[in-house]
């Protein structure tokens, strides 16, 4: 079973509010991913890190989200100004390395509802 811990499980925000969620990757996993899963089960890659360094992020993440993975602290993903379209399940995953054969282990997710 995955040991990726995500908090909170549920988050309710009004439009324009900040929404922040956290992720503790599995111990010893330096690579962390954030994905957004919408109600149609479509996954959107948001950003990934190796240790504290951003490896890749999409445009949306660069503009409206801020994310970090500080050393010795949980990783976080924050939406600066929530929009209705941001309502989704946000999944954090960690991996032993960037090598493709390594599995991504997912947390239970943070379900964000933007009213």
């Amino acid at each position, binding site marked *: 079973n*995955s040991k990726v811990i*995500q908090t909170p499980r549920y988050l309710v925000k009004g439009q324009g509010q900040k929404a922040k969620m956290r992720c503790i990757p599995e111990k010893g996993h330096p690579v962390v991913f954030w994905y957004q899963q919408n109600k149609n089960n479509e996954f959107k890659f948001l950003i990934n890190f190796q240790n504290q360094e951003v*490896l890749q992020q999409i445009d949306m993440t660069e503009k409206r989200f801020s994310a970090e993975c500080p050393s010795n602290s949980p990783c976080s993903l924050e939406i600066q100004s929530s929009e209705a379209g941001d309502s989704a399940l946000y*999944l954090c*995953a960690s*991996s032993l390395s960037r090598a*493709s*054969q390594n599995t991504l282990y*997912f947390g239970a997710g943070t379900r964000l509802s933007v009213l």
Partner: protein
Amino acid sequence: AQSVTQPDARVTVSEGASLQLRCKYSYSGTPYLFWYVQYPRQGLQLLLKYYSGDPVVQGVNGFEAEFIKSNSSFHLRKASVHWSDSAVYFCAVRENSNNRIFFGDGTQLVVKP
């Protein structure tokens, strides 16, 4: 471009019956393939993965999948399903270049008692 297609949005089977969930991928390099399961209100759990060797891979809870390169397929199978297998199943491919993972749209499995 890489993509994953799961042609069946929903599959209904009776408990004890055999199961096949279909997955086809499009990827130019060596594919690293995964099946995940998502139970209601939970995250994704790994069922099995393939990246080399025997094309039939065994996973948890009696699941297996077969990589058929000529068909670009990685179908998931189980000999006898249980009601607790009801969930959404996702096929995924992980690419080499930037190690992102791409998911299919999922197949909702309903196991009838």
